[in-house]
């Protein structure tokens, strides 16, 4: 057992090297996770950026009796194939509502057809060689260019990629989230208050607690099965509606809100409760006037995180039919509707490659909303969090 000093110091060096290696390896794991994130975000930005730009063409539109009957005749035939068919479709309507247009010719910027858009974006395009020449000439004359795509934010879904927008899905998301939060926020907070402040510590309470923890880990798709069998099959809630989607997501979000609210309530020190009891408050008065106001930031933070989670959820909504094709947004709770992640899913499964950029564009919008919500939650937590 006799080791020389040299041997021991060599061994020590080796041990320290191994320790350092461990440090670098674990650091590598963290860096790997960050690299994944950067790769992912940049991939989405590169893919999605074109969706915010759209090719437009300046054309002379002739409004007369003939073009009212045959809208295609309104535009000179060299550029006719370059203009989106959706533009022609709306011409008769526009002439109906503005009779003074009749008999005039107006030079207007109109939306170009999807292949033109793809060509100008520098992507693969099915545009023929001569059409490419026409487009190139138009670009040189300043009569065709990429402009900011406002339509993407104001229109509903369409079978023509150049006309499709995210607005209908955004409104669907809004309605669905309204239902979800108005159901699960009160119930979640009430449950948490009951379990933390009122419930006796008995078997029944323990079962409820275990049950809530399990619900939080149930795969989301099973909530879709529940929505399908119970809400739609049993209660007859209209399929595809924000009502059924919202109720399904509410059950899914409930455990998230309960767990975070309980944590917020638990972090309120007992001294506050004791002081309130000491001056004669009843239990409900203690909770209402002292515990809840103090823990409100924590509760809101948890709820916003739950909301963000529900907003990105797709699987249960597919099962209750919220992947409908919705060209017009509707603000009702019972009409067929779609939500942003479901819209992304629909676009992703379109074979037309022009929809790929719509998909990524929709993702960027959704991510922006979600990151905003999460940042809001973090900000709330940092601003109002109190250490006791």
């Amino acid at each position, binding site marked *: 057992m006799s080791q020389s000093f040299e041997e021991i110091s060599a061994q020590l060096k080796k041990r320290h090297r191994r320790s350092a290696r461990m440090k670098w390896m674990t650091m590598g794991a963290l860096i790997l996770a960050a690299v*994944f994130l950067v790769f992912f975000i940049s991939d989405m930005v590169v893919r999605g950026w074109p969706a915010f730009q759209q090719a437009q063409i300046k054309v002379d539109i002739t409004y007369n009796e003939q073009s009212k009957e045959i809208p295609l005749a309104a535009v000179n035939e060299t550029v006719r194939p370059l203009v989106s068919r959706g533009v022609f479709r709306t011409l008769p309507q526009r002439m109906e509502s503005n009779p003074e247009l009749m008999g005039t010719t107006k030079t207007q910027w109109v939306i170009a057809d999807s292949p033109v858009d793809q060509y100008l974006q520098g992507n693969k395009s099915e545009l023929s060689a001569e059409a490419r020449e026409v487009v190139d000439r138009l670009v040189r004359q300043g009569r065709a260019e990429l402009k900011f795509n406002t339509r993407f934010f104001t229109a509903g879904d369409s079978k023509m990629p150049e006309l499709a927008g995210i607005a209908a899905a955004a409104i669907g998301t809004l309605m669905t989230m309204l239902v979800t939060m108005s159901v699960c926020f009160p119930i979640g907070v009430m449950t948490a208050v009951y379990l933390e402040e009122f419930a006796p510590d008995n078997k029944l309470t323990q079962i*409820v607690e275990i049950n809530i923890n*399990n619900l939080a880990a149930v795969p989301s798709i099973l909530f879709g099965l529940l929505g399908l069998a119970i809400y739609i099959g049993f209660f007859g809630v209209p399929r595809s509606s924000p009502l059924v989607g919202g109720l399904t997501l509410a059950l899914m979000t409930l455990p998230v809100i309960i767990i975070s609210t309980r944590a917020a309530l638990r972090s309120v020190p007992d001294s506050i409760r004791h002081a309130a009891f000491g001056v004669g408050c009843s239990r409900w008065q203690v909770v209402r006037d002292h515990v809840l106001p103090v823990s409100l930031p924590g509760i809101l933070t948890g709820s916003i995180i739950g909301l963000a989670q529900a907003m990105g959820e797709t699987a249960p909504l597919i099962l209750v039919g919220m992947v409908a094709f919705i060209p017009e947004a509707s603000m009702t709770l019972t009409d067929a509707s779609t939500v942003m992640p479901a819209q992304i*899913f629909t676009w992703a499964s379109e074979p037309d490659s022009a929809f790929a950029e719509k998909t990524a564009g929709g993702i960027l919008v959704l991510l922006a909303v979600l990151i905003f919500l999460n940042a809001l939650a973090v900000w709330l937590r940092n601003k109002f969090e109190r250490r006791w």
Partner: protein
Amino acid sequence: MFFREIDMSTNIVFLLFCAGLVGLGGVAFVLSRAKATRVRATGTSMYAQPDQYGWFAVLTTAGPALLISALGAFVLLLMGADIPLLYLLAASLVIAAIGLVLGLNQVRPDFHARRAIESVIRKLLAAAAAISILTTLGILISIVGEALRFFQLHSFWDFITGTTWNPGASFLSSAGRGEDGGSAAQFGSVPLFAGTFMITLIAMLVAIPVGLGAAVYMVEFAPARVRQAAKPVLEVLAGIPTVVYGVFAALTVAPLVVDIAGLFGLEASYSNALAPGLVMGIMIIPFISSLSDDVINSVPSSLREGALALGITKGEMVRNVVVPAAAPGIISASLLAVSRALGETMIVVMAAGMRPNLTANPLEDMTTVTVSIVAALTGDQEFGSAQTLSAFALGLVLFIVTLTLNIVSVIMIRRFREKYRVNNL
């Protein structure tokens, strides 16, 4: 006739009902408080404040009325009867008026209004807590009920051990053309489970080392600045919706896998199992790292200090002291992660194949349980067909497996908690 017209739009009836209820509640509050104030002004000492009598009267007015109308609506729905909503709501308003009188009657010096309110609130809160139990029951009933219907059509044994999943043929048999043996629907779920476990395995091979490594680094080695910067990165990763990961897997990773496999002379399918597995692993990294972070953080520092005092290096301390101490928590986190991977839907729906395929090669396309559930329920099948019902049978298996994993994980974490007396897990 006037009522007929209102009956045409239930919205107006509903609004009128709400307005009536709010009005009655307001009247109840004002009257009771006034009465209590009067009584108190005579010098009689009362058990509660006038406001509390007021609120109690509001509860007796609105509570029974709401309860009756909700119960009535539920019964109407169950019976499918078409009794006009109007009568129900009118009856509720009458009950509200009766409640108002009763509540007003209770404004007596010897009545504990505050205690009464308290018990009502307590019951309300308990009812809210019961909803979570109802949710679980709802999941169980909906899934088990339909799954039993499925097992009446097809044997349980075939479902568990069969190796051919071919539900599409049930359409033929329902059209009366299923007699020729070849086209009978087959519901052997083994290939689905094989696919699910393959993708889960790939995901875990990515997520557990990276997630655990990141957690160890953040707790044991990282300076505070790095920690502060890294937490949000992982949180963003955790906040990305699964459908977005699905797009990423299908559009970016799957072609990448095909290209890389091509470099090695291997042929990969564009809906290979590797791409969704890898992306699912990325998705689960923050899940594992945040759970393990909490666990490693709550290993008592006395253990660390004791170990360091014996002269071992930091790396040896982590490997031989911290990680073994935190092992139950880490295993519990990994089990939860497995349960999440098994139930993950969007990534596999978008990036994995639709063809049930019993193979060990992750470069081939495989399908999973969740993909089959979605496929079975989004087709044009009628609800009672064997194909739609098979989704519920698969859901039942998924529920049982994930539930078992969750319970085991809870037991593990409890063991850890009791050993080190940590309360924040």
